[in-house]
């Protein structure tokens, strides 16, 4: 991480990666993309940006929150009497939002958390 080229390019790369992650995440339902890939890109952005500062704890929090998001996204439909994890959709203005999006977000968080933990653990071994 001491290379000058890398240090300079990180300034451009990290924001670009974040935007890319967001785009991939949002377009997942209509074209190639989705939570898993978006999580990979976002994880790369985090590792590049402040990878050395974040510890295993952050990773564990990401994994835990992600799993909770994914599990919770199925509850609305279960409460309203339909089968668990069926999509519940609502419309805010012209944008359609639904519970599968929360599920996808959970997937992305787990992927990010896994990457963080892997980095820390790989260094320790």
């Amino acid at each position, binding site marked *: 991480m001491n290379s000058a080229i890398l240090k300079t390019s990180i300034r451009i790369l990290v924001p670009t990666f974040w935007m890319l992650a967001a785009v991939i995440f949002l377009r997942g339902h209509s074209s190639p993309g*989705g939570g898993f890939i978006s999580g990979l890109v976002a994880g790369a952005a985090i590792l590049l940006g402040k990878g050395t500062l974040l510890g295993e704890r952050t990773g564990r929090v990401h994994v835990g929150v992600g*799993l909770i998001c994914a599990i919770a996204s199925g509850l609305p439909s279960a409460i309203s009497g339909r089968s668990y994890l069926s999509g519940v959709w609502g419309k805010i203005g012209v944008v359609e939002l639904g519970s599968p999006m929360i599920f996808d977000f959970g997937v992305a968080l787990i992927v990010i958390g896994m990457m963080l933990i*892997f980095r820390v653990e790989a260094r320790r071994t």
Partner: protein
Amino acid sequence: MIDFWILGSILVAPALYVIGNRSTSLAAWLAASLFGSLCLVFSLVPLPIGELSRGFAAMVFGVGAVVFWYCAETEEDQERGPLISLLWTFGVAMIALTCCESFLGFVAGWEGVSLCSFFLIRLGKAGDAPRCAKNVLLTTGLMGLLTPIGIAALAPAPSLGAILIAAGCVAKSAQVPFSGWLPLAMRAPTPVSAFLHSATMVQAGVFVLHRYSSSFLETGLAPWIQGLGLLTLIFALFAFIVSHDAKASLAWTTVAALGLGTILSQGDTGPFLLFTLAHALYKAPLFMIAGYLEKQAGHRDWRRWAYISELPFGLKVTAWITGWAAIALPFSLTLAAKREIDAIVALTIFGIITSWGVLRVAIMPTLRARHTGLGKYGFPALTLALANIVLGIQYGLVPLSHLPAVLGTLAIAVFLAMAVGPSETSDFGIAPWTPTLPRVHGFHNRWLAAGLGLTGLLAVGSLFHSQGAVPLRWETTLCVFLAGGVAICVPRLPNFKHSLVAVGGVGALFSIQFALSGAPDLALTQLLVEGISLALVAAFVLRRPRAIGPERPSTARAAVATLAGVGGFVITLAILLNRTPSGLSDEFSGLAERAHASNIVNAILVDFRGFDTLGEISVLALAVVLMIALNQERRKAS
């Protein structure tokens, strides 16, 4: 009536024993002329014993006659009465097995071949010959007893009977897991190996499997038997690769042929008989050539056969013509037989192993040796190989459309022989022979091999494609080939960094393949996973020492790794070949609208199959937790 004649002919054996102890060549010539005339009788006179029995009998007599001729030439200076008389009994037992009408005659022949091979292997000079003979007897004789029991039980209990028959035959025809006895039988003298491996012993099991194929079909056992045949083929390929003993290598090619024969035995008589005959007519001469080379070199290690300096010219020509017949080049009966076979995957594996075996045992040792005179030892083998080609021409000229596939398997065999372990200390490569191969300046042999391999893959691939077996496209072939090349290169690269980049290259190739095959989601994921894992691994592993380690990969490890890789490939291929278009996809694309999505892949992942995905990410989270826990344990320990 015919049973009486067959079993009565055993009475000739004591006479041969007495004559053989005075003059081996006289006894051998006597036996050869008797077997030869019987071969003519069985092939020309329409005896009322059925096409299958007649074909087998003619084959046994014909090959047997030439084996006796070989005995007369090679064993002349010894007292070989037991050998000649036992070989005679061996042949008669095989005839009894195939032609006898009574059950008793069949059982006598069935157990007779095992007993005879037991005594014949004990005649071998190797120190452990008696032990190996016992092993062969226990496997084939004892397990073989199940078959007569099964035949007796067939009427009252069809399923049990069929299973018992199959069990006995599987042991006798050296299918997995009973393949081990066949290489052990190599301790026998050369004429015995040539006879045992081509026309008699090994074909007994396959013959009975074919005779009772209708029972197997009724009881639903046929697909299992064929599956076992394919498994045997694959097993034989790996055992062949790691074998250093020339005759054991040949034995493994026989095991492969038996695997293919087992697959064919559950089909029509025509292709089965044709293949068995073609195989006998090139396998027996291969053993005779190997026997001569063994005598010349004084050992059986084919890697050092390259240093044989002098060979008779006749033997060289014989080796090449036998190779021609075995590889199934034009005009050979082998090519005609292969035309009739539609088990295409099995045929390809069989083609590769046979071509490789021929290269290893017959072609390569003869390339560099200077020739001395004409020599006489090659002629019995030459007769059989020529018979293969003459019968092939008589069978009718086969259209050349099958030739690319044959040449393709040959090219793959050359590629494997050159690429698998081309270093000087190699265990399985053809390193000692590289000086004999054309070396163009600045153009390494390995690249030549790679080119050959690519050509071969394309040729075989085109055959698969034309048969509709695999929807193969050129970019797929290229990706597979490049990936295979990388897989071969990685263990040889000097340090970890290079290996890492090479492995990453494979991932990138496959993501291109996914993108081309209409799975952009998968391609994107693959590319990202590949890139990021590469970066992560590189960042942390590269701090370690540059070299991977002082030790070279061991033979056993290489074998296990190859087994795993090729096994995975075969399983994947088997699954792909069984693929049927799923009726669900159309339905799903209609449902996508209701899930507020136009990308059906993602809709399936997070909505229709959301519960599956939840399970998957739970596993992921669990893995992470376990990783942390394990590492903590280790830190505590250290």
